[in-house]
């Protein structure tokens, strides 16, 4: 059965903007992205919205719905109260381009700063053999769809623009953790650079990244905290340091 939905959609650009009220019909089973498209088709033809798969797998339609970072294609209209006004804004951690579309290039720059997987010298494609238990931790992080909701909600950069130059953000901490936990990656300075170059120490583990992740990756528990512990092994634990000196081996096996 169709229902009438009250929306407040932010419209504007980098210079100025405001929330605009609109009323639109919605059908059972529809998601917020559906009604935004209906608004675009019927009332605001120049409304800018980024989307692609409409299946929660491309990470394009990230926006803030009633103040929460969410994927518009995965947010059921039926989850709101009948009289509730749904407020839709662009991601508030990134510069806005137009309406609901933001410039997320910050994330692409940060991605380039993380060194890629480095296999053992001489290993040819097709040669690596790994057991499932050795790669399952990293596989969880490969579920990331790069919607950047975790980056958007992370207060380190959301609330402090000046931190963007020194903080990579949760999406890239799971990338670093994925590689540092990889049994065949030979780059051994990932812990050090995570702390000193990517700003791991700035994270105060308040877990908002985990709360908003649409893939339910346990970002904080499975990536950030383990990486923090690995950094402690290498930088802050005198006994681990002593052990590594005496036994002449790297701290991580």
């Amino acid at each position: 059965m169709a229902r009438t939905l009250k929306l407040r959609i932010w419209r504007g650009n980098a210079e100025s903007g405001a929330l605009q009220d609109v009323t639109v019909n919605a059908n059972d089973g529809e998601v917020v992205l559906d009604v935004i498209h209906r608004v675009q088709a019927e009332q605001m033809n120049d409304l800018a919205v980024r989307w692609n798969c409409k299946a929660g797998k491309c990470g394009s339609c990230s926006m803030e719905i009633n103040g929460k970072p969410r994927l518009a294609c995965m947010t059921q209209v039926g989850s709101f109260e009948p009289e509730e006004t749904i407020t839709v804004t662009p991601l508030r951690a990134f510069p806005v381009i137009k309406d609901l579309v933001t410039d997320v290039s910050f994330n692409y720059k940060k991605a380039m700063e993380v060194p890629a997987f480095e296999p053992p010298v001489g290993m040819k494609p097709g040669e690596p053999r790994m057991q499932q238990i050795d790669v399952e931790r990293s596989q969880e992080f490969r579920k990331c769809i790069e919607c950047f909701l975790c980056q958007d909600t992370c207060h380190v950069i959301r609330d402090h623009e000046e931190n963007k130059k020194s903080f990579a953000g949760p999406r890239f901490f799971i990338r670093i953790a994925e590689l540092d936990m990889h049994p065949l990656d030979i780059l051994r300075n990932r812990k050090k650079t995570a702390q000193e170059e990517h700003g791991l120490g700035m994270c105060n583990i308040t877990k908002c990244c985990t709360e908003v992740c649409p893939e339910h990756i346990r970002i904080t528990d499975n990536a950030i905290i383990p990486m923090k512990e690995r950094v402690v092994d290498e930088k802050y634990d005198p006994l681990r340091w002593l052990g590594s000196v005496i036994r002449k081996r790297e701290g991580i096996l």
Partner: protein
Amino acid sequence: MAKSETGVFSAGRAEIAERTLRTDKWWLQPLTIFSVLVAFIIYATFRAFENAHYYASPLISPFYSPCLGKCVPGSSLLGSPFLNFHIFGFATFSPALFILIFPLGFRMTCYYYRKSYYRSFWMSPPACAVAEPHSKYTGETRAPLILQNSHRYFFYIGLIFNVLLTIDAILAFRNGDGQWGHMSIGTVVLLANATFLWLYSASCHTCRHTIGGRLRNFSAHPIRYKAWTIVSALNHKHQNFAWISLLGVAFADFYVRLVSMHPGLNHYFF
């Protein structure tokens, strides 16, 4: 508009006046946590300085175990090395003050409690997607918060406390005259307290790391991998164990205090 400010009001970001547009009761959780933790801090501080009603043979309050100072006769498990301890001539120290720094340090540096008090006390942030009130933020990169990295040492010391409190629970299978083979409500309270503390420690993120998280090849360490999977399962519930064990300690202390004031309260099953 506050275009020149930082954060969500930075130039270039969507011009929205509100600090958050969340419509749910996002303030409820930090307020609840703040209230419970403040209540615990007040109670624990009062009890730590009270220096009385912490022993009702065979029960000892977890706030005072091991009792290392000037203790009530029979309450000291490891002797009294701080019996004559004094600072600037002031010698009447509550025995609790010699030991509470360790469980306090363990909880203060705990990854779960950090989340809780950063949100509810320091409002950094108060809730997800709710702008924090601070103009600058450096996280845990400098003193004093860089000391959070000492969590593992508090964890190790916490294990010693767990052993001692487990011994206290075992000693509670006696009656008030020290005869074995008895069990009271106090025995159950101390056993439950020790169990909750073990679960809290075993589910700790540092425990998870130490037991196997730091390994790169699980397949080369099958026993540690198995242990890591068990600790990982417990780790899912670390938040629950953190609260249960905190309330368990407070309740155990409260119960011992009650029994020490009203010995007849401690019903013996056998």
